[in-house]
């Protein structure tokens, strides 16, 4: 694992992996959404609104996967002090926040015709809204922290502590009575009919590839930015 933590080796792999992930992700997600919007039958009770599922579920998964990335990278940064881990955590914040916001918006649009209201303050919706605020907090903290190693530890600790919200989101529908339905897919069994499950699975895969591609692209951009700054600083030092 330490071999890939070398920025030069990382860049060598990321250079070709970024476009591959983005193209594969766009093809899979686009195909799954087209399939979901045109080919899937209406649901028994929800009717046509079931199609929001194909955006809502992948974005929910990536909103949580984004913070898990931040937490994992922060842990690696705090223990091994490798700058690339810090860069990975920083790079995951914006895409994670975007997916979280899309998940909340699509959920709200689905809730209006299904439940009869745009929003309720139940365990699942509230904990997911907190996730969005945690992202904003992390982004502000991370942008505010200078590039010294000591101050980069502050957003890393925040990223690690904020991860406690992830199991709460996941378990909220089991621990508490919620307006939001329970998990449809649990360890190997699904209560979603195959007609919906296949495009859903492909959409999840596609969105995940897009997330991976954006993550790598942002890591490369942050690396390039810090290299450019270092070069400018060296030039300014020369007489």
């Amino acid at each position, binding site marked *: 694992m330490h071999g890939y933590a070398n920025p030069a080796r990382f860049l060598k792999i990321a250079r070709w992996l970024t476009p591959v992930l983005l193209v594969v992700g766009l093809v899979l997600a686009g195909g799954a959404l087209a399939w979901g919007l045109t080919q899937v*039958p209406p649901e028994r009770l929800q009717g046509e609104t079931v199609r929001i599922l194909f955006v809502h579920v992948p974005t929910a998964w990536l909103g949580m996967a984004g913070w898990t990335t931040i937490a994992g990278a922060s842990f690696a940064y705090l223990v091994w002090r490798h700058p690339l881990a810090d860069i990975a955590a920083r790079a995951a914040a914006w895409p994670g926040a975007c997916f979280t916001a899309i998940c909340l918006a699509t959920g709200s649009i689905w809730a209006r015709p299904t*439940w*009869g209201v745009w929003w309720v303050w139940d365990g699942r919706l509230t904990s997911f809204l907190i996730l969005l605020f945690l992202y904003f907090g992390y982004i502000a903290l991370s942008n505010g922290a200078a590039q010294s190693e000591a101050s980069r530890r502050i957003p890393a600790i925040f990223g690690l502590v904020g991860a406690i919200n992830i199991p709460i989101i996941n378990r909220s529908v089991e621990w508490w009575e919620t*307006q939001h339905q329970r998990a449809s897919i649990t360890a190997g069994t699904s209560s979603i009919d195959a007609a919906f499950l296949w495009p859903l699975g492909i959409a999840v895969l596609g969105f995940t590839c897009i997330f991976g591609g954006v993550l790598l692209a942002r890591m490369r951009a942050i690396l390039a930015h810090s290299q450019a700054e270092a070069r400018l600083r060296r030039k300014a030092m020369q007489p």
Partner: protein
Amino acid sequence: MSWKPKHQRMALLGVALVALVGAVLLAMWGLRSQASYFYVPAQVESDPPAVGQNIRLGGMVLEGSLGQADDGVSILFTVHDGEAQVPVRYRGILPDLFVEGSGVVAEGRFTPEGTFVADTLLAKHDENYVPRELEEMTAAQAKAAVAETTK
């Protein structure tokens, strides 16, 4: 035995994380009844809320219980959770997804007679996603059909 700095950091973080997770799990355990969005009929039976207190009641609409009140406008139905049943009276427009056998969350209060008078009804969708072709099935049959196709 002397530890390398990175092993010290790993141990310190590990202990801190275990303590944090433990504390939050205890807090969530303490919140388990307060953080619920609604009462289910079994809770109403074992620990009845005060008459006139605003609460939410959630459960399934009992099959065959849907009917009209004497005033011709209000509807009556029974909410159950498999253990207990609560009669509900509601006056207003029903949500599209409100059908017998489906989930519902009602906001309102109990009368002294034990009837729940709802001001607002929210339909609750369950975790089963079934195409319309299987419409005639009940929720339980549909769930079995889905379990069959996605095994």
